């Protein structure tokens, strides 16, 4: 059998990614191919916002992390070809441009995919981490108990995967905080 090639090791994203990966958000003169909008206003489905912070072990909001979301559309289908579609399903933000270090994504509430409850895949990179961190957002107004992956998580830690629904100024806002360490540490999945 042919010898397998060895995987390229991961390295920290460091503090200076913004002028390349999230340039428009940070005001650099380089256009961005992805941003905090996973959809435009014409896509089918219920428009929602996902807002939150990423907290370190001391409870401080991290100001130089990058978070990516990847999700299915309202009918539970991934739009695998990223283009000028009105629904893209993929978004990316840094946490360094708001005074409270929060991120706010605009998207459509995803439909359920196969046997999974509606969810959003989350990928996080930050200076303090050697590799990508993967988690999932589930919604507090869905039947998550029917989701096998959700159920594979220890019952008392499942709440770290749940976004909480609020209405703010007539907008549907789901709040989802990520804790890197400590009592409320978010469940991260090994890929």
């Amino acid at each position, binding site marked *: 059998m042919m010898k397998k090639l060895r995987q390229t090791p991961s390295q920290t994203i460091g503090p200076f990614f913004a002028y390349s990966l999230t340039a428009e958000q940070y005001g650099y003169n380089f256009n961005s191919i992805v941003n905090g909008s996973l959809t435009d206003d014409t896509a089918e489905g219920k428009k929602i916002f996902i807002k939150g912070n990423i907290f370190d072990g001391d409870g401080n909001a991290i100001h*130089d992390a990058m978070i990516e979301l990847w999700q299915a559309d309202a009918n539970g289908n991934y739009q695998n070809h990223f283009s000028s579609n009105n629904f893209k399903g993929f978004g990316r933000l840094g946490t360094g441009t708001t005074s409270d270090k929060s991120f706010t994504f605009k998207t459509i509430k995803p439909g359920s995919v196969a046997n999974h409850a509606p969810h959003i895949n989350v990928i996080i990179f930050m200076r303090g981490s050697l590799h990508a961190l993967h988690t999932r957002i589930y919604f507090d107004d869905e039947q998550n108990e029917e989701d096998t992956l959700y159920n594979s998580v220890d019952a008392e830690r499942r709440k770290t995967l749940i976004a909480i629904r609020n209405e703010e100024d007539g907008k549907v806002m789901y709040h989802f905080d990520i804790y890197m360490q400590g009592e409320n540490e978010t469940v991260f999945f090994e890929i």
Partner: protein
Amino acid sequence: MLVKEYLKDLSLPAFGESIIGKFDNNLTKNARKNHDPIGERIKVSGKVMDEDGRPLRNVLIEIWQANSAGRYIHKEEIHDAPLDPNFLGAGRMLTDNEGKYMFYTIKPGAYPWGNHFNAWRPNHIHFSVMGHQIGHRLVTQMYFPGDPLFEFDPIFQSVPVHARELLIAKFRMDWTDPEFALAYEFNIILNGKSKTPFE
């Protein structure tokens, strides 16, 4: 493991050529205002493959780096070295049908970063790579051969000894653009299933 079974095959979005601008892979041109950026012009190219050596096409590669003086354009950067008005330090491209990519850029300088007294980063280019599956999402750093700062850099040292060579580009005299730019080869192997052990 249950989680892997559910997640490992999840596809990531495929990007099309239309998102890439004409000079996105040429950092010597994409922020040019009145003349070429200062520094040693180089070519960085290679192939993105899976662990069986199969080329991965349409993989999005985004890079960022310091300028030739070791200065990042990022607003939080504090190193006392000059910015170059003709250099941003950001680029991107998609791999072609043979998994190949190529950037023109300026060789980045070393810089002190305050991690400990007199801590200097070796010359490096940051890479963000987005392949086809969720396990193909990689952020890493490419180094240059023979850098004397390797042994002093905790970030380079965070990789196990046996895997460090995978982050060092190879000098390729045969790939140079004669009388124009020296060339370095940096191949990237993506696979979600056999990550380099870190602990």
